[in-house]
C-alpha cells in the first residue's frame, strides 16, 4: 500500500475532534488568547502611525494612502496564518501528545486539515480586531478592497499553510530543537516577498527568485490596486498556480519527514 493510500477515507469526525482539542486549549488559557490579539494590535498601531507621519511629509505616500497599513495587514495574514498552523502543531510536541495521536486512527492528512482549520480560527481572533483598529485609528478599511481581498487572503493563507506543513515536518523529524525554525522561517521570505516595496527595487537576479514566491504576487497586486486602482487577475492566478505546487510539495515533504521520523525513532523522543 502506498503512502498516499493511507490518506483515503478522510473522517470529518476526527478532524472535528482535533479542532475541538485546540479550541478547548485556547479557551482554557487567557495568555494564549491575549497573545493572539497583542502582536497584531501592536503592529497595526506602530506602522499605522508611521504611515500617517510619512503621508504628511511625502507626496507619493499621500497618493498611495494605505499601502503601508495594507501591507502590514496582509503580511500579518501570511505570518499569523503560518504561526497559527505551526503553534497548534507545537502544542502537541510540548504536551508530549504526538505519540497518542500517531497511534490513534487519526491520519496525517486529517491532522494537517485540522491544523489548517485552527490557523483560520487563530487568524480570525488576531487579525479581525487588527482590521477594526485600522478603521478606527487610520480610516483604512481593508474590507473596502472587496473581492480582491478574498484573492489576496486565499493566496496568502495557502502559502502560510505550505510553510506551516513544511516546518511542522522539520520539527517532527528533528524534535523541539528545530522549534526556532517555526518562528523565523517566514521572516526569511519577507525581504523577497517585497512586502513594503515593489519587486523592481530588487536586483534582477533576485527578482527571479522573488517571483517564485506567491506572496510577491499578492503584495504587488495590493499596490496595483491601491495606487493604480487596478486588480491584477493575472498576478493572482499565477500565485494560485505556484501555491498549488507548493502545497503538494510541502505535503510530500511532510510525509517524507514523518517517514524519516519513524525510521529514526524521533516520534518516541520528540525532544531536542
Amino acid at each position, binding site marked *: *500500500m502506498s503512502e498516499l493510500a493511507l490518506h483515503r477515507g478522510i473522517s470529518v469526525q476526527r478532524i472535528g*475532534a482535533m479542532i475541538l482539542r485546540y479550541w*478547548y486549549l485556547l479557551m482554557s488559557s487567557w495568555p494564549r488568547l491575549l497573545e493572539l490579539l497583542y502582536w497584531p494590535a501592536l503592529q497595526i498601531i506602530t506602522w499605522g502611525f508611521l504611515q500617517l507621519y510619512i503621508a504628511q511629509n511625502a507626496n507619493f505616500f499621500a497618493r498611495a494612502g494605505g499601502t503601508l497599513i495594507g501591507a502590514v495587514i496582509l503580511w500579518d495574514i501570511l505570518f499569523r496564518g503560518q504561526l497559527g498552523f505551526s503553534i497548534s502543531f507545537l502544542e502537541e510536541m510540548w*504536551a508530549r*501528545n504526538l*505519540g497518542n495521536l500517531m497511534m*490513534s*486512527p487519526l491520519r496525517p492528512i486529517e491532522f494537517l486539515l485540522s491544523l489548517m482549520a485552527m490557523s483560520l480560527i487563530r487568524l480570525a481572533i488576531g487579525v479581525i480586531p487588527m482590521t477594526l483598529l485600522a478603521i478606527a485609528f487610520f480610516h483604512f478599511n481593508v474590507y473596502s478592497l472587496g473581492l480582491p481581498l478574498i484573492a489576496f487572503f486565499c493566496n496568502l493563507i495557502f502559502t502560510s499553510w505550505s510553510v506551516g506543513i513544511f516546518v511542522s515536518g522539520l520539527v517532527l523529524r528533528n524534535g523541539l530543537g528545530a522549534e526556532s525554525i517555526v518562528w523565523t522561517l517566514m521572516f526569511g521570505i519577507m525581504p523577497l516577498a517585497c512586502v513594503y516595496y515593489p519587486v523592481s527595487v530588487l536586483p534582477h537576479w533576485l527578482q527571479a527568485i522573488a517571483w517564485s514566491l506567491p506572496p510577491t504576487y499578492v503584495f504587488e497586486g495590493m499596490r496595483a490596486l491601491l495606487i493604480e486602482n487596478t486588480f491584477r487577475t493575472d498576478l493572482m492566478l499565477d500565485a494560485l498556480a505556484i501555491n498549488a505546487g507548493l502545497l503538494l510539495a510541502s505535503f510530500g515533504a511532510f510525509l517524507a519527514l514523518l*517517514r524519516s521520523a519513524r525510521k529514526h525513532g524521533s516520534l*518516541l523522543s520528540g525532544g531536542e
Partner: protein
Amino acid sequence: MHSTAQWRKNASSMTENSKASSWPTVAEGISSAAIEVDRLVKVYKQTRAVDGISFSLPRGSITGLLGGNGAGKTTTIAMIMGLVLPTSGRVRVLGHRMPEESAEVLGRMNFESPYVDMPMRLTVRQNLTIFGKLYAVRHLADRIAKLADDLDLNDFIDRANGKLSAGQKTRVALAKALINQPELLLLDEPTASLDPDTADWVRSHLERYRKDNNATILLASHNMLEVERLCDRVIIMKRGRVEDDDTPDAIMARYNRSTLEEVFLDVARGRVNGAKEGTR
C-alpha cells in the same frame, strides 16, 4: 482460542531465534495471532537496538516483556505500534502488516506509555471526549461515564490533567487506553507511580478487562510481581535479543529460581546457572 491452561501446558520451553518452542510461531501462520513478529531488526546508526526477534502472541493472552534498560522493549513495542520502522523483518497486528496497513488496525488497538502524556490544560473529560471521537466511539458519554466509574475518575473528571497526581494521571492514561475497548492493548509500565493498593486495583481491572473482552495485552514492566500475577507468558529481552520466552513458572523452574525478580537479575548480570544450561 488458546486458554491460559493450554498456553501453560504448551509452554514447556520456548525461546526466539530458532530455539525449540511450543508457542505458535510466525512460520506456522497462526491466523488467530494478535501479534506476529518475524525476524525483527532495528538498527540506530551503530546500535542494534533489536536484533532479529520473532514471536507470536495468541489472541486473548497477556504477555510480559521483560528486560533491563536498553534491552529493546520500548523499540519493539514502538515497532509493533508502527511508531518506529523496522530496519528489517516484519510485524503483523490483528492480521495486518504494520505500518503499511495501520489504518486497518489502529482503531482496534490502544496503548499507554510513559513516553507520552495527555494534554495538561484539558480536563480529564475533555481529553477522553477527544480521544473517544478520534476512535469513533459510539455512545461516547456513556463510555466515559463507565470508565470514570470503573477507574474511579469521578472525583477529578472535570479537573485539568496537569493538576492531577501521578497516580491519577496513570488512571486517566489507562482510561484513554481503554476508551475504544481495544482488542489489543500495549502497556509500558502501566502501574508505575501508583501506590501498592491502586496498582493492585489496576491489575485486577486489567485482568477483568482481558477476561470480559478476550483482549490481548502486551505489557512491558519492571515490576516482577506484576508480571508473575498478570502474565500467561514472559518474554525476556537482553541486548535486543530474546533471552527466554515461556510461562513464568517454566522460566523460574528453568533458572531454578523462586521469583521472576531473581531470574531477571540472573539474566541482567549474565549469570547462567546449571539448571538453565541443563534444559538447553
